């Protein structure tokens, strides 16, 4: 039955681009009309999963954030509603705002470094000879494959105050002040190490994705730009970047999400310390929930995290919507 329909619908690229935006009356105007229930059957498992495993827990989390929910309530389960009290508590706590500011700083530093370095690495990789390219790609893939917990453990070892190779290297280079320097005791240093770790872990994915996108740019475009006498940076600005804009936005958004949610690395390495120096929002939420047993405040903190993150990602959503408009 579908086969007949398929054949009856003419399909040429021109025709496709000519068709209007979907949504209002897809059946008539789209080249591929919905065939009854099929699409819904196909997305049903995904929807089901998202409803039960994500939306439902999320709803429970919202509920918790509106209740007085502590250890006693977790065990006995007779929580009382307190309205927006938890949110008020958080928003009037100067420590919370410090954490928010730190989260944004952390994210900004990481994302800028990741995007810059991975773009450079991607451009470099594309220009390499074949053998070199393979080696670089393999190295990137290996760094990417390194499990977070293992990588974090290794970084702790690299920066170990007594036997760490970093202190040894710095000391042998003549920086004697790094002899047995306790990296994790100083807020700034601990912050810096986490940035290095996260950049190290994130660049491979971003670089590989950008590199693969670069390979899809037709070389004629570069040729003609070069013939026009454009310089390297100029070509990047006016040819490469516009071509790769969607992918830049995608990678950028993913990195924003991932660094905003960086949790395991920090939790395993510093638990948010020393002091509050590496406490960003997810760490704060977990600390409040699990260590102080204020599950209500912790939940409220993560709801606010989601709101703040969405704020940063407006761009992402706009791009996405534009793409969905663009019929294929």
């Amino acid at each position, binding site marked *: 039955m579908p086969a007949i329909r398929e054949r009856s619908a003419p399909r040429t690229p021109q025709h496709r681009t000519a068709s209007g935006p979907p949504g209002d009356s897809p059946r008539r105007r789209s080249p591929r009309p919905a065939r009854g229930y099929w699409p819904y059957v196909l997305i049903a498992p995904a929807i089901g999963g998202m409803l039960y495993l994500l939306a439902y827990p999320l709803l429970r989390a919202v509920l918790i954030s509106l209740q007085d929910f502590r*250890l*006693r309530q977790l*065990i006995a389960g007779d929580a009382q509603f307190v309205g927006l009290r938890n949110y008020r508590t958080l928003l009037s706590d100067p420590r919370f705002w410090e954490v928010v500011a730190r989260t944004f700083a952390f994210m900004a530093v990481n994302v800028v470094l990741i995007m810059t370095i991975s773009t450079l690495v991607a451009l470099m990789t594309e220009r390499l000879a074949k053998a070199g390219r393979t080696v670089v790609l393999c190295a990137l893939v290996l760094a990417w494959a390194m499990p977070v917990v293992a990588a974090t453990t290794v970084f702790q070892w690299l920066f170990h105050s007594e036997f760490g190779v970093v202190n040894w290297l710095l000391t042998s280079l003549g920086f004697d002040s790094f002899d047995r320097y*306790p990296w994790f005791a*100083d807020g700034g240093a601990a912050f810096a190490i986490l940035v290095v770790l996260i950049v190290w872990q994130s660049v491979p994915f971003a670089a590989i994705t950008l590199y693969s996108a670069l390979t899809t740019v037709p070389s004629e475009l570069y040729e003609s730009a070069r013939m026009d006498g454009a310089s390297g940076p100029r070509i990047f600005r006016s040819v490469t970047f516009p071509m790769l804009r969607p992918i830049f936005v995608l990678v950028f958004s993913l990195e924003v999400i991932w660094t905003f949610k960086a949790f395991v690395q920090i939790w395993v390495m510093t638990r948010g310390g020393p*002091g509050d120096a590496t406490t960003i929002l997810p760490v704060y939420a977990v600390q409040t929930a*699990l*260590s*102080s047993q204020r599950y209500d405040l912790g939940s409220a903190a993560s709801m606010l995290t989601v709101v703040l993150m969405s704020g940063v990602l407006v761009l992402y959503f706009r791009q996405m919507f534009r793409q969905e408009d663009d019929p294929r």
Partner: protein
Amino acid sequence: MKYRLLAGSSTLVMAATLSACGGSADEGGDGHTTVDVWLMRDSVSAAFQKEFVKGFEAKHPEIEVKVQIQEWDGIGEKITAALASNDAPDVIEVGNTQVAQFAASGGLLDLTDSKTELKGEHWLRGLAEPGAYEGKQYGIPYYAANRVVIYRTDLFEKAGVDAAAIKTRDQWVEATTKLNKGKTQGIYLPGQMWYALGGFIWDEGGDFAAKSGGKWKGALDTPEALRGMEFYARLQALGKGPKDADEDDPPQAQVMAKGQVAQVISTPGGANAVIENNPGLKDKLGFFPIPGKSADTPGAVFTGGSDLVIPAAAGDSEEALTLIKELTGDTWQKKLAVAMSYVPNRTTLASAVADDPGASAMAVGAANGHATPNTPGWAAVEAENPIKDYMTAALVGGDAAKEAAKASAAITRAMNANS
């Protein structure tokens, strides 16, 4: 209707097949009840654990004991998860600084009725009090220990230092300075041993936190507490202890086992761990109480220890109680005290370890024993532990007063987060 009938009959068939397989499936096999016990890492030796399980199972053949060792790191969350579940372990060992919050949570079985049978009137106060909440007893005292100085008799002799003569802090520092020559470390004191710091602070008359007007407030920035930290720093400098780690990272027993450390501050049981790692040190370890400010009072020490609790959600609480009765009864308490150099859970049993040099050094210190603030809020302080950060910051040359104020604020916040 038809469907249900079919389902019903197939259940019957299945039941028949199952029972045909022989043996009854209830009660976990052949009439045994399995009691799940959570003990903390290194709280008992593997040998003692084996001996106890064997002895207990011989006496109670209907109960099978399954011991799981838990790590101290992150234990609060783990116990929380267990208490809130439907199928919790039957017996859990909980540190005496953490038991108060769980007693208050409603997730533990009320054991007040067994208090008399367990001879509760002789319990050590430092263990019994945190295990009680609103007049009811939830935690049963298990064992206690406090810190002493473990020293190398041979190194002391070589340096011409008489350990028995060390009675005051000044003498202690003087002796340690003398020992701290060449490859030998006078004392291995990691920067974050906050229980030791507590002792020095209590010596000065300070505390970690103080209650004023019904609210707990961090007190590390008081002059007394700052003097305590000052002494800690002075002592810490007489060895190569890392400034950014506690006694578990690396385990100080392993460090001492390498042979170049003259003293460590540890519970007497730590000596066993040293010998385990380096049997050559077997007859070369001695003990003395942590010296106080003057010769007539020993140094203040933190009374550490554990309670045993039964979660309300435990499946076999009756058997769990049987196990607790045995483990906290005379026989096993005496054996435990000897094996691990612990203070037994009751004052009447103190004679059990009278001959043990480590235990007698510990007993001297115990006379000046202190506890962390007895409130459910304290566990949150330990979970975040701003004290450790403060110690490191002060030791690496930070402004102690400023760092102490910061840490005190963090303590205040953590202790009051839940009220």
